[in-house]
């Protein structure tokens, strides 16, 4: 694309691209603006305020905290389950492990509602468990685990882990030492990418959670749905604003990690 000789085709494409971007971004911007507008029906002229944000924080801080709590608990679970699983899958490649790899995608492929219903049918009878936040956590772990395994597995398969481990073993390192000193550090980009993915997905998860939650244990997206359904649109929008503040840094970090991972190859 040499400068100076840009024809009508270029400007046409640029205009089209910008138009599409505008279509995608405007609802978000409008929604965010609504969250800080005095009165949505009057418009931004009615004044800018943090009143709705404060109100959301007052009424819904429980759901926000629960969401963050579940996200990190979910992260801990997927790390403990997913990293060793990816390790085994990467080190023992055969028919059985390929099958497991395929099965791991199932929770992603099946609609969240179906998974949630299956969980309720199976474990709904355990009252205390059904009512606790752990029930939602189980759903989130089911849903996010494949993403962790895939992210870690991709890195593990690209670094020739087997030879690295043989190298460490030849220098006298036993399994535990190899795993923590050589395997984990060299899979960090995958673990990091997987972690951000899991946290992001868990915080934003709605399908499963909507069925799994109880009135006393709502997460952020479920609360958001409630707010839009039953309260002033400004409150719902302020809620969205808070959601963005939590989720955007995660997404930006994810991109940065992905880029750094690609750069080091």
């Amino acid at each position: 694309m040499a400068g100076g000789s840009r024809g009508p085709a270029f400007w046409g494409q640029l205009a089209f691209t910008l138009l599409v971007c505008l279509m995608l971004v405007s609802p978000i911007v409008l929604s965010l603006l609504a969250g800080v507008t005095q009165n949505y029906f009057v418009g931004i002229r009615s004044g800018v305020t943090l009143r709705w944000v404060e109100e959301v924080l007052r009424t819904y801080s429980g759901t926000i905290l629960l969401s963050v709590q579940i996200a990190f608990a979910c992260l801990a679970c997927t790390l403990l389950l997913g990293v060793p699983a990816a390790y085994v899958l990467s080190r023992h490649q055969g028919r059985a492990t390929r099958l497991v790899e395929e099965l791991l995608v199932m929770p992603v492929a099946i609609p969240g509602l179906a998974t949630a219903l299956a969980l309720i049918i199976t474990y709904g009878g355990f009252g205390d468990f059904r009512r606790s936040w752990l029930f939602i956590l189980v759903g989130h772990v089911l849903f996010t685990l494949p993403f962790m395994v895939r992210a870690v597995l991709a890195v593990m398969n690209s670094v020739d882990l087997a030879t690295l481990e043989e190298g460490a073993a030849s220098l006298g390192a036993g399994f535990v030492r190899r795993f923590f000193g050589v395997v984990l550090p060299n899979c960090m980009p995958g673990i990091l990418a997987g972690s951000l993915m899991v946290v992001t997905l868990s915080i934003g998860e709605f399908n499963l959670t909507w069925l799994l939650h109880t009135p006393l244990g709502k997460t952020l997206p479920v609360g958001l749905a409630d707010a839009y359904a039953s309260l002033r649109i400004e409150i719902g929008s302020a809620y969205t604003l808070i959601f963005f503040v939590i989720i955007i840094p995660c997404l930006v970090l994810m991109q940065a990690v992905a880029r750094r991972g690609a750069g080091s190859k």
Partner: protein
Amino acid sequence: MSATAKSDSFRVEPVPVRLEGCSKTFGNGARALEPLDLTIRGGETMVFLGPSGCGKTTTLRLIAGLESPDPGGRVFFGDEDVTRLPIERRNVGMVFQSYALFPNMNVAQNVAYGLRVRSVERRQRDRRVDEMLAMMQMADLAGRRIDQLSGGQRQRVALARALVVRPRVLLLDEPLTALDAKLRDGLRLEIDRLLRGLGITAVYVTHDQGEAMALGDRITVMARGRVAQIGTPQDIYFRPADAFVAEFIGTMNRLPARVDDGILQIGSLQLPWQGPAGTTTVLIRPEDVRLQDDDGVLTGMVSVAVFLGDRTRVVVDVADGSSIIVDAPGRTSVARGDTVRLGFDPARLLSLPDRS
């Protein structure tokens, strides 16, 4: 690497390695190695040479402890039976074809890894790493990341890392294969000097006969999971045990010959011969064949003449349709289409038992 290689802190007691009845069958039923008995003397450099799939790497991995032999096979380091010890408890040093350096550590940390695993206390560890890096002429690279090193530098780090722990046996798995030709020659000399300086028992796997000849005190030529011949480079080259070794090492000419009444006839040459009557094959190296003006044993026409500087490689088509390769002195002037006579010293002829 020079004389510093004799530094006492790296000197190791040479340990012999003995394999007894070691065979290896993989899970899918493929036999990678037929039962093998082999002794590698203490301090000697043994090269396993052969085409891919001949079992050389499997044998190395059996010695390393990365594979275990089929039941009944045993591996000894000196008098100690190490068959059941995993690699991390055999105290070997290993250099991998792909180097296997840890990307998450810099050069010095890679070299220090084995010492850290052995809980060598910090000051001594630093000193030994420094000494090792100095010996490999890499002191200025200590802080580099692995991905900032060239292939040759990586290979030296891999050697340093394997040697710094003073292993009982040094195992090298095609360490030069990933490097370009020029670098390979340089590093080969360095490795040779290093191994002799240290006096360590070393096992070196390669498919490159030049490397094998240059580095090996003895060479084990392998084919299809079996040992074809064990001997010094001279043995292997001048007295190949069978047709495979003869063809695999260097270049070999097959001469058409007939045996009648205890007389071997090649062209105009007649020699007393023991062996069954009929056609047979005798072998001769290209450098043992002469181009000459008068008599000669065979007459033929030059089909190719390539000037290689130190010698001229001439391919001569002889009467029965076969081609004979001749390494003539560099200053020989023959051209395609010339008629030449070939002669040789009968003492340089090789015959092989017909096994192939």
